[in-house]
Structures are given as C-alpha cells and as structure tokens.
C-alpha cells in the first residue's frame, strides 16, 4: 500500500457498549501529497474521523493505518488545527509555534542546542502565512484571522507528513477566510504536505481539495468520493465559474439527501 492514511471498515462508539455509535463501516484512503476534504451533515462523525487518524481514539472494530503503521497510540507525525485556535495565551506567538518541538520526541532533545535554527524555521513559516514580524506578540494581541494563521504555523513546525484541519476557518469572516484559503493552497503547493480538511463549507472544500469525501449522517461512513477537476494553481475567481457552482450544487444535494436519510 502506498496510502498515507488507510481506514478500513472502522466502527467507533463513544461511552461504552450502549453509547453513541459515531462512525460505522468507515472506509477511506488518502494518498501521500493529496489534499482531501471531508464534508457531511453536522454530528456525522467528521471530528471523530480526525481523532481516529491521529490516534486520539482507537476504534472498536476495523483498521486504521497511518504511514504504514497500525494506529494504537497518538501518532506524532501529524499537525492539527481546530476551529478554535487554542493558542496558549501566556506564550508569545513564536513560543506557541515552537511548542510542538518541545513535545515531539525527535525534536525535544535537539531544541536547546539548535534553537536558532528552529526559530528561523518558525519565522519562515510566519512569513509564509503573512505574519512576518508578529512572532513576539501575544496571541491575544492578534485578530482571529491572525491567530488562525499562527495556528497553521504551529501545526506545521515539526514538519508533519500529515496536516489535519478541523473546520479551521469556521469562526472567521468571509474575507479573512478567503485569504486563508489562499495561504493553505500555497502551503500545500510549496511543502507537498498531505492535508485532510474537515469543513461545513462546500465552497471551501471545492476550492481547496483534490478529493472530496461526502459522509452520511451518523453513524458516519463515506457515501461518495469526488475528484475535483479544477487545475492548479487555482484562483479565487474560480468560485464564480459555472463548473464550480455546479460542483457545489451537487455536493449540496448529496448532503441534503444524507441529512434527510437521518
């Protein structure tokens, strides 16, 4: 298998034998370098899927393999970002970005000696997302959009093979959101990292992803996989083209059906 993420027939139930069955018969594959988006009705198990991939939850049935290894404990090769930026308010933005390095085994012992290199790397990332010079500021001195940018830097600092984004732009206004779409698009192009993006926003999914997975209502499983046909690099104006709107319309219909089925 060359799949970076390989999920096969997974069942995951919360809270004991008679708890909520969150996903059931979930099967999904993501290849290295892919940009995958997961869309689906609310509460269908999208966040659960993320936690299965990162090893924060272990399924009751089925197989989760990430980077060729059975997932039985948290895998440290992923970077994560949530809707809520979860920056630590007592650290400067730069220190927040360096946090994963203090934790991941591979880096924590090297950090003290090579601090300068790491800081340089963090500053590169900050520049990439358009936050040059904001490293010394505290998170609460940044706007929501800026925090979310920093959050992306944090997710990327330890050079993860896989970036997991759980509705990272949900709380932002439309314009900031579009700016960050471009940031992510460029990051994906520049760093060749594999990305799985969970979102409610079908236009976001269509604009960014190569593959869109549509999930059913809870218990979630993948009901449809779309290849997104638009050539890269993509421009924001793409969203006003007919094919784009048709794809969004189609996705919309599928999810509406999935919701009805629930």
């Amino acid at each position, binding site marked *: 298998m060359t799949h970076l993420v390989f999920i096969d027939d997974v069942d995951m139930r919360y809270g004991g034998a008679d708890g909520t069955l969150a996903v059931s018969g979930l099967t999904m594959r993501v290849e290295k370098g892919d940009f995958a988006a997961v869309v689906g009705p609310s509460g269908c198990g999208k966040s659960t899927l993320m*936690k299965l991939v*990162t*090893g*924060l939850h272990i399924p009751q049935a089925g197989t989760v393999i990430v980077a060729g290894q059975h997932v039985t*404990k*948290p*895998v*440290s090769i*992923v970077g*994560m970002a*949530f809707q*809520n930026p*979860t920056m*630590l*308010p*007592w*650290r400067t933005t730069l220190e927040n970005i360096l*946090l*994963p390095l*203090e*934790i*991941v*085994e591979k880096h924590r012992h090297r950090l003290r000696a090579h601090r300068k290199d790491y800081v340089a790397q963090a500053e590169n990332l900050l520049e990439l997302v358009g936050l040059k010079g904001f490293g010394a500021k*505290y*998170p*609460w*001195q940044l706007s929501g959009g800026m925090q979310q940018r920093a959050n992306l830097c944090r997710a990327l600092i*330890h050079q993860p093979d896989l970036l997991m984004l759980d509705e990272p732009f949900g709380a932002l206004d439309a314009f900031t959101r579009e700016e960050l779409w471009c940031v992510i698009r460029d990051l994906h192009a520049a760093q060749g990292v594999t990305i799985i993006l969970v979102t409610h926003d079908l236009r976001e999914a269509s604009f960014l992803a190569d593959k869109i997975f549509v999930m059913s209502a809870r218990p979630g499983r993948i009901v449809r996989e779309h290849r997104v046909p638009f050539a890269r690099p993509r421009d924001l104006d793409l969203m006003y083209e007919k094919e784009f709107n048709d794809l969004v319309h189609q996705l919309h219909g599928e999810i509406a059906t999935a919701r009805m089925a629930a």
Partner: protein
Amino acid sequence: MTIVTERPGTPAVSKPRALRISWVRAAPWLYTIGLFLIWELLVIALQMPQTILPAPSRIFQAIVQYWSPIWKNSLQTLFTTTLGFGLAVVGGLAIGLFIGWSKTIYAGLYPLMIGFNAIPKVAVVPILVIWFGIGTIPAVITAFLISFFPIVVNVATGLATIEPETEDVLRALGARKIDIMLKVGVPRSMPYFFGSLKIAITLAFVGSVLSETVAANYGLGNMMSSAQSQFNVPLVFAGLLMLAVEGIAMYALMAWIERRMTGWAHRSTMAH
C-alpha cells in the same frame, strides 16, 4: 463590576465622565470616613462606655499613645503572616497540582480538606504549641493551615478547566501526562492561583493573630489579648484597625501582583 454603564441616553463623549471616575476613586475613602463618623455619632448618642465600644476618636488616640508597641507588634504579625502565607503559597500550589493530577486523588482528598476546614483553627493551636513551643512557629503554621485551602482549590479548578482541544493538540503529538501538566496545566492554573492569593492573605492574617492570641510573647494578637485582659478596649480596637489596614494593604498588593502576573488572562478570552 456593575450591570449598568452610562451608555443610555448620554452621548458617549460626556464631560461628567472624568468626574464620575474620580467618584469611584474617592469612594473607598468616603465610605471609610462615613463609617467612622456614624460610629462616632452612635457611640456619643448611645453613651457607650469605652470599655464596650470605644469611639473612633478614642481609638486614634490609643494609636498615637501606644504607637511604639503597636508598630513593633504589627511588624511581628506582618512577618509571621507573610512567612505562613509564603508556605501556603508553595504548599498550596504543590498540593493543588498534585490533586488536579488525578481524579481519584482529588475525590479522596477533597472531603478530608473540607472536614479540616470546618474545624476552628483555635483548637489546633494548643497542639502546635506543645510541639513547637509558643511564638513565631505556631503562628506561622496556623497562618499556613488556614490559608492554603483556597489556594489548593483554585489551582485544582484551574487544572480542571483546560480546554480539551488544547490537550488533544498536545496528545496527538505524543505528549505525556507530565508534558501536558508542565506546558499547559501549570501556566493555565496561574490566573486561578494568583486570584486565590487575595483571599489567602486575609486568612493568613486571621491565622497568625489567632495563634498569637493564644501563644506568643509578641505580635498584634498578643497585644490585643493582653489589652483585652486589661480592659484596655481602645487599644484592642487600635489593634483591630491596624490589622484591617495591613489586611487591605496586603490584599491590594496581591491584587496588583495578580494583574501583573496574569495580564494575559484578563486580556485574553480565557479569563472565566
């Protein structure tokens, strides 16, 4: 700290604003003066003998008259209080983190601490005296015993309110329990910790004075109990006044430290 602001009806640029702010500034002084005035008038009106409730004027007179012993004893009390409070800070932080560490430890120790807290510390002082003699040590320990509880509870609460998402981010990176504790738990509980210091310091005063009353050669507690047994009631009240002043001063200091140390908590959304 109030539900009503001056927004309605008044233009936002309002002259009286500066005036109003200074009212808030002046309020503590005005209220204090008001309290003393009412007290004075009440004493005069009811013809209270000074051995029961001396008038403020009589108390200030006592402060002037006995300034030297009041000053020395205040310093002594301040010293024992600060020492006991310091111990409570260290111990309370440690125990709070320890308790916040595990649900079982928390469940086990919490009722014991409540029970201990319901015991008047006066009952504990004689036992301390038997172990340590009278003087500074039992006073320090009493101050410690009485003031560490709120610190423990607050630190444990701080640990309990960590956002699960922050934890998830770290756990996904392979963080161990101790990592999460050090990187997130400890800093996260700091605002709660500093917030508890204000309460703890006033309690520490109560503790050290209590112990000095029963077992000490010096300190405000000793001075007051000796004055009490002499029926020098104005001096007792002078001592109480000094205590109140020291208490307010230390409270203000702690509030200042809190603001300094945990500015981020007040400016970020994390504050409650």
